[in-house]
């Protein structure tokens, strides 16, 4: 209830957000009656999930034979989705530790993306095995037969890494949500939702005691999630790196994969953020600073990935190893040259456009680039997996991938699965972090007090947008 008598101070970040209440209003706006477009999208996603289920039933009933050879599309897609997840944790956890003030507005979307991406990725290890109904043999379940899984197998590392990642990121996600669900509970008028939110918010009331422990717990969760996010894709990369297959057996893989993961993740964040921004008119929250920072992150990781590509080829050449050389030569000249080149182009070359500020600041351009990177990153995994396997030691068994409708269904289905969850999330849980955005807003003051942090923010905006915020929005 800001009375006109006082001078209203505004965040340099979110100049259009006048008050705490407005954050609640805008956040709740996302949760109210969906448009026809939303329902169409949701229906499409569910349809794709149906396709996935159909294809998988086919696999279970007739055997895996209908998929392309060996480890191809499914493992590629698995790695792709695990990678996607990483940006979310990066933004929500690592940037939290760094206290980056541009994190608050976007981290909820990013984190939701993480959870659902990992949820999607977790499907594929199950779907791709020959006898999915025995997947639980991979878990260390005590049985009277005293049979245990093999802890030396990278696949078992995967089981642990992915489940841990899924658990921790979900927990982190939910803990962060508690105060906002409480806010939703207090704001919503729908009695049904009120009840549900009441349960989900665990009766959060925002007392000093709650906040005191909450902030610390959140900090430590972030501190744990940070090494985790770095480890998960390393472990996934070790699926390949600890093998003996030429093109896989490389020490560079862990950092290379992590960088790639963040690259693809950030790209996916942008790919999701721009439409949400446009549809829900969130210009007040997703500001140029956010896009600018994301663009720079994308640029950095794309440079790292580009370096990794180069280094791989250099080592292949420099080691003088016949098999290694053949594989890498085959990647760019062999049966899969198209994949090899789209990977290099989309991941290492296209993002370089972001050096140019005009492009960085142009949502459409940025969106398109991010989509390219997504495609490129899928191809990166494809290129790592398929040519290496089809061109390994034994020439007699060089093979060609035969992609079938089942592969396609599983790939598309995974997107359906992911977006289904994401759309449901948008509809039922606060997509904006109500409590945390308030942290970067100037608190309501009766008597104007000094708020130093606003100066830094002002500078940040200034150096991002010489033209100023309004002009940017106007474009």
């Amino acid at each position, binding site marked *: *209830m800001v009375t006109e008598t006082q001078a209203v101070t505004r965040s340099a970040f979110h100049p259009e957000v006048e008050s*705490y*209440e407005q954050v*609640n209003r805008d956040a709740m706006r996302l949760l109210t009656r969906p448009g026809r477009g939303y329902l169409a999208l949701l229906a499409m996603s569910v349809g794709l999930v149906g396709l996935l289920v159909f294809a998988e039933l086919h696999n279970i009933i007739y055997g895996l034979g209908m998929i392309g050879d060996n480890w191809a599309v499914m493992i590629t897609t698995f790695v792709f989705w695990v990678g996607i997840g990483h940006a979310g944790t990066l933004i929500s956890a690592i940037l939290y530790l760094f206290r980056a003030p541009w994190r608050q507005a976007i981290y909820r979307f990013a984190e939701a993306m993480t959870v659902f991406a990992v949820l999607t990725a977790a499907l594929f290890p199950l779907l791709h095995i020959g006898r999915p109904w025995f997947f639980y043999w991979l878990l*260390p379940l005590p049985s009277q037969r*005293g*049979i*245990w*899984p*093999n*802890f*030396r197998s990278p696949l*078992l*590392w995967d089981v*642990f*890494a992915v*489940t*841990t990642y899924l*658990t*921790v990121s979900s*927990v*982190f996600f939910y*803990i962060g949500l508690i*105060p906002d669900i409480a*806010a939703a509970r*207090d704001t919503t008028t729908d009695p049904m939702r009120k009840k549900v939110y009441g349960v989900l918010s*665990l*009766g*959060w*009331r*925002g*007392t*000093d*005691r*709650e*906040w*005191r*422990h*909450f*902030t*610390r*717990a959140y900090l*430590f*969760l972030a*501190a*744990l*999630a940070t*090494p*985790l996010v770095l480890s998960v894709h390393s*472990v996934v990369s*070790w699926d390949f790196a600890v093998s003996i297959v030429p093109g896989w057996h490389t020490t560079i893989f862990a950092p290379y994969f992590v960088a790639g993961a963040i690259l693809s993740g950030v790209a996916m964040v942008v790919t999701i953020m721009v439409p949400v921004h446009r549809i829900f008119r969130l210009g007040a929250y997703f500001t140029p600073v956010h896009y600018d920072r994301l663009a720079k992150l994308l640029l950095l990781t794309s440079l790292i990935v580009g370096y990794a590509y180069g280094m791989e080829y250099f080592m292949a050449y420099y080691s003088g190893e016949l098999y290694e050389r053949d594989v890498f030569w085959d990647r760019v000249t062999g049966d899969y040259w198209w994949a090899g080149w789209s990977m290099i182009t989309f991941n290492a070359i296209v993002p370089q456009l972001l050096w140019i500020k005009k492009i960085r600041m142009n949502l459409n351009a940025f969106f398109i680039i991010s989509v390219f990177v997504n495609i490129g990153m899928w191809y990166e995994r494809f290129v790592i997996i398929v040519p290496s396997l089809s061109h390994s030691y034994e020439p007699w068994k060089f093979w060609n991938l035969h992609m079938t409708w089942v592969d396609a269904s599983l790939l598309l289905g995974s997107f359906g699965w992911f977006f289904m969850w994401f759309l449901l999330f948008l509809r039922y849980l606060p997509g904006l972090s*109500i*409590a*945390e955005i308030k*942290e970067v807003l100037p*608190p*309501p003051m*009766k*008597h104007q*007090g000094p708020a130093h942090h606003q100066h830094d923010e002002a500078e940040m905006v200034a150096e991002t947008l010489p033209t100023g915020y309004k002009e940017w929005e106007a474009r």
Partner: protein
Amino acid sequence: MSKLRTGVLGVFPHLDTATEAIRRLRREGFELTVYSPTPRHEVEEALGTKESPVRIFTLMGAFAGTAAGTALAAWASIVWPLVVGGKEIISMPAFSVIMFELTILIGALSTVAGLFLLGRLPHLGPPEAPMYHPSFTGGNFGVFAHAPRDRYADVQRIMTESGSEEVLVDHR
């Protein structure tokens, strides 16, 4: 907890007024429960909150996780010793991954446990401060002073003086 179940709730639209009230009420020796839509240092300073002990849970959990990881991998390999690929039965390099993952997992879970225990979540049973106002998750701050009935008057005075827009009294 020995806090009184009775008291007075003041609703503050502004942070500075709220902190003002907090300081004065504490000087008067009241125990307080403060509601805020977002964690503010000003409030913590005013209340003089101490470091949360959640970190103990985190640390212990992490250690437990490491131990569990080691034990699981090693023990399972010993009770069913199969040689694969000329690796040792206890292949530490491989097991370290398991150890790490369990460290994180159990560390995180026990942190949450810590939060729930210390922060009294989920909120079962009667809340420590009986009075609440939905706007506390919106824009307003709230200060609940745990006070015996005979001191309600003082509390109400302090609150209104320091700028509370609305003072609610617990009439139970």
